[in-house]
């Protein structure tokens, strides 16, 4: 339920209090606990435990279909991160050399698809995703990154729709990109 959260705290850690006053929660967070919220949280975990394996299987299957579809339909697409069991069941993250993330987001948005990107242009700080850079991506690949996350409300039709729409968008923006042109020349495809 909204209005309650949990923090798993390592033994011995003593972070600074956000809320001061009473000594609730062993002096870590003052103010009367949100009892109804906490009970709800526990209930949510029980429900989740019951469906975790099913959710994981369904999400992973859709995730992998989207990943495979993108690799099949979009040339020079790079999957960022692990595959299979080492990958979050609901995460799809690609880099498309030659195009920039914010541009992809806006084009997708105009087709009713929401995604996010690690490009510099789309962040407040104008820095690309430090996570992607830490994965060893070059700047231009970080700028061209696209992340989809799926969930319980995602349908097979959604996956089909993205696979229909995305290749065209990437192709259109690549056609107008000097970086893409240079990349093709560098691998001898132009």
């Amino acid at each position, binding site marked *: 339920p909204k209005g309650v959260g949990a923090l798993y705290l390592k033994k011995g850690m003593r972070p600074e209090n956000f809320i001061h006053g009473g000594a609730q929660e062993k002096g870590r967070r003052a103010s009367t606990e949100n009892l109804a919220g906490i009970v709800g949280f526990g209930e949510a975990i029980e429900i989740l435990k019951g469906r975790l394996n099913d959710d994981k299987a369904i999400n992973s299957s859709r995730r992998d279909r989207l990943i495979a579809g993108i690799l099949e339909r979009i040339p020079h697409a790079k999957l960022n991160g692990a595959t299979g069991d080492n990958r979050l069941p609901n995460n799809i993250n690609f880099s498309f050399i*030659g*195009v*920039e*993330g*914010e*541009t992809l987001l*806006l084009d997708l*948005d*105009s087709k009713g698809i929401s995604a996010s990107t690690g*490009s*510099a*242009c*789309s*962040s*407040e700080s*104008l820095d*690309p995703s430090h996570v992607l850079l830490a994965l060893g991506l*070059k*700047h*231009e690949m970080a*700028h061209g990154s696209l992340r989809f996350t799926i969930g319980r409300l995602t349908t097979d039709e959604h996956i089909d729709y993205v696979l229909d729409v995305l290749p065209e968008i990437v192709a259109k923006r690549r*056609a*107008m*990109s*000097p*970086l*893409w*042109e240079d990349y093709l020349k560098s691998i001898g495809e132009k």
Partner: protein
Amino acid sequence: MALDYSQKVMDHFINPRNVGEIENADGVGEAGNPKCGDIMKIYLKVNPETKVIDDVKFKTFGCASAIASSSMATEMIKGRTIEEAWNLTNNAVAEALDGLPPIKMNCSVLAEEAIHTALNDYRSKHGMNVIPMEHHED
């Protein structure tokens, strides 16, 4: 995170004008670099007698502001003389787009730089002096 883009910016982003390249262009210029996430390349076709820019094309790797800025900038120099084109400023481009978010103003600066670089390329190939310009390495 969605930036507030003007209708003009969105128009030039969704339907950019003058996209492409010119074979045997009279002047070619590029600005930006992969690290900063913006690269613009400008191609010019200049009338040898009148020195009017008969045709201009661009290719851009970058965000919506970058694409809109290059599209608008090429529209603004098309049909102008190379002198008039040199005087195009990034502020004029941004104004023509009904404004860019402050954090995106550097996209218009890049457009100005790409055009200057292309014009200087033309000038150096046609026995004219190269005009000193600023480079923005971001």
